[in-house]
């Protein structure tokens, strides 16, 4: 009864029996198309770095930030151990618990919620981080005896000109970034982690995203954001191994040894004023961005991948200001998603960019770039930053490790 059945094995058993009910038939059809590439839909969970950073960006996001509501360090650590095992199982396409959605005792609620039964693992990655408030609370209290281990790079983000941050979209003691090619797989993972965490953590805020807005690998075409422009052309990519150590992965020499192999994640919820942007002329849009809309080529000439000649771009264009050459060569790995939260009270699209960027040190990367952008970027007229959070993303768990085990060691 407690045999671990992977979703793929369940599929096989579905195929073996004559399934008459319509729901099951639909299930089989759906899975057959989703699981053609069997090995490639599982992203390894364990390793030197956490998955979900240099992993080629998936299509869907469910991001969740938590408050820790226990004062008991052991209780928190136990949750992280249970979460890690559940996360590993789910990334393999199995249930959150060891028994699964339908194989448990009839009198007990299942240890997996079941909506991912029969679905492909969909390249699910679950990436875990800890926020500054885990180390010390607003009153400066050392909550779990971790204050001395707070990395210097995990300095609270400063305010930026034009910020209109809301508590409802900001901060968090912990975060989990769930990415998958199937939204139901990502939602399933977050739902089950939230359920397991009740009494120890509570959801502070969460964000669904669709349509990756960056490529994180040479194998991916550059996608478009909701402004209709290609985004992330000069992103840091998985293939740039040497650059990753310089710009992405925290090093032991950076100070916090427990973070070696980890990275720092800045999350910003950036609302776009879609309707006014849509009334802007094509020429103006291209001058604001600094690229042409059709190909994504810099306005200084060439094709999408041609390096821009910054001096030939409009001085307040986004590409010119955000380019590494304007920022001491600093680079980030951007991994954001578009979001649409329906419509606001005026009937306007409540939409924008859920910006996610991983970097070795936010003080010299995101903070430096955002200061420049906040001061001069022509895009600011069409953007409002409404949410902000910062997390230290520990190195990947090795065999037997758990999320954050180097921090709690």
């Amino acid at each position: 009864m407690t045999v671990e059945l992977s979703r793929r094995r369940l599929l096989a058993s579905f195929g073996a029996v004559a399934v008459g009910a319509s729901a099951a038939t639909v299930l089989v059809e759906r899975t057959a198309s989703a699981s053609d590439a069997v090995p490639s839909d599982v992203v390894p969970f364990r390793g030197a770095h956490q998955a979900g950073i240099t992993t080629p960006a998936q299509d869907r996001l469910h991001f969740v930030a938590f408050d820790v509501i226990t004062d008991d360090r052991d209780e928190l650590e136990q949750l992280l151990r249970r979460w890690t095992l559940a996360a590993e199982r789910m990334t393999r396409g199995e249930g959150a618990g060891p028994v699964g959605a339908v194989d448990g005792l009839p009198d007990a609620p299942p240890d997996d919620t079941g909506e991912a039964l029969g679905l492909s693992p969909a390249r699910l990655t679950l990436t875990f981080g800890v926020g500054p408030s885990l180390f010390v609370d607003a009153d400066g209290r050392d909550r779990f005896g971790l204050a001395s281990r707070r990395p210097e790079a995990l300095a609270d983000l400063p305010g930026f000109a034009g910020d209109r941050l809301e508590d409802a979209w900001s901060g968090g003691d912990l975060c989990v970034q769930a990415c998958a090619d199937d939204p139901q797989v990502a939602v399933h993972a977050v739902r089950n982690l939230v359920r397991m965490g009740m009494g120890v953590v509570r959801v502070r805020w969460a964000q669904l995203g669709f349509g990756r807005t960056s490529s994180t690998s040479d194998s991916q075409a550059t996608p478009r954001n909701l402004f209709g422009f290609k985004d992330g052309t000069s992103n840091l990519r998985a293939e740039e191994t040497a650059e990753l150590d310089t710009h992405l992965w925290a090093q032991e020499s950076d100070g916090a040894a427990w973070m070696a192999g980890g990275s720092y994640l800045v999350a910003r919820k950036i609302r776009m004023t879609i309707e006014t942007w849509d009334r802007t002329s094509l020429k103006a849009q291209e001058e604001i961005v600094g690229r042409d809309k059709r190909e994504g080529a810099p306005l200084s000439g060439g094709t999408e991948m041609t390096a821009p000649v910054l001096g030939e771009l409009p001085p307040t264009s986004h590409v010119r200001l955000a380019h590494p050459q304007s920022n001491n060569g600093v680079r980030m790995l951007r991994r954001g998603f578009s979001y649409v939260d329906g419509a606001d009270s005026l009937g306007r699209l409540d939409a924008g960019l859920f910006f996610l960027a991983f970097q070795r040190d936010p003080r010299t990367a995101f903070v430096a770039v955002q200061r420049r952008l906040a001061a001069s970027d022509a895009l600011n007229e069409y953007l409002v930053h409404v949410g902000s959070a910062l997390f230290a993303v520990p190195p990947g768990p090795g065999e037997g490790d758990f999320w954050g085990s180097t921090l709690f060691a």
Partner: protein
Amino acid sequence: MLLRARALALPSVLLAAALGASACSSADATASGARVGVTAGDGTCELTATSVPAGVVTFAVQNTGSQVAEFYVYAADGTTILSEVENVGPGVTRELVVELAAGTAKTTCRPSDGVDGISTDLTVTASGALSATAKPSLAQAVEQYRGFVAEETAALLAGTEAFVAAVKDGDVAQAKALYPQVRTHWERIEPVVESFADLDYSLDAREDGVEPGTQWTGWHRLEKALWIDKSLTGMTPVADQLLADTEDLVGRIPSIELSPSLIGNGATALMEEVATGKVTGEEERYSRTDLWDFQANVDGARAAYDALAPALKDADPGLATTLESRFAALQAKLDALKQDDGFVLYDDLSKAQVRELADAVDALAEPLSNLTASVVNG
């Protein structure tokens, strides 16, 4: 009220869709009890067996008809709903798992439009297997919980008599003072009283739950008179009905066959009431005395837990430790909101306070949902 007619048996019901059913059969997960196939067609309702051994029984309800169907399992009295599955669409099979005691039961297939269904009597034979009350600690649990229900029932009746007298005297102040206190006794045993769907409706319906063509009666009708209309004019018949229905209820309660799983699932159901009706402030929309009900539901869940605790401590001491600390944490949050003899009004709670209550409810309700399985299988 009123997760309508979901009552005692609800949390034990597995509404397994066809998806779940297929997976079960391949995984042989339901080998632990009898299975009865039910074919519900247009004007037909056929069961593969009309005699089952006592214990866990799984009904696989297949709708071969053209309309959405419902399937009910009633206790021996033919009116107390033990469990139900609704919205079984044409062509769909759903499973219903229910624990039946030896004796008789009744099943009914019914189209969703409310017309009379087709009933079948079921014989439930005593079986040596899975008689949960065979364990002494569980037999004790049943006796302890029966005592709790009897005490609360007596207090509910006495309180209702006093409340009804105040209403009939036109004593608004006294009636308002008694209202949340008396309802405490209802809310403590809510899963038990809700198993009588007719009385749950006449006693505890909210205004938007009143079915067209029927009169709105019961506690919430009088709540509206007291807090919104601020007048008891014309309320005497409602008050008389309240008392008559309560007396009827008190008379019926001894017929309920309590079992460890009913008690455990009752605890879960009470926390579900808190999570969906009380922490959201939906129960007492006029009086705003939701926290009285909140406390009473928690009291009821605690009493059910206390009855099962000796058995649970044998079966799963870790779960017992968790539940006790979570009960204590929730009670501490409630204690902080006490005022005079009762609580602050729901409208006086800040958003942050509501959120903290909701977090504490989730923290308890999630592990509590494993109570029944732990004691029944432990």
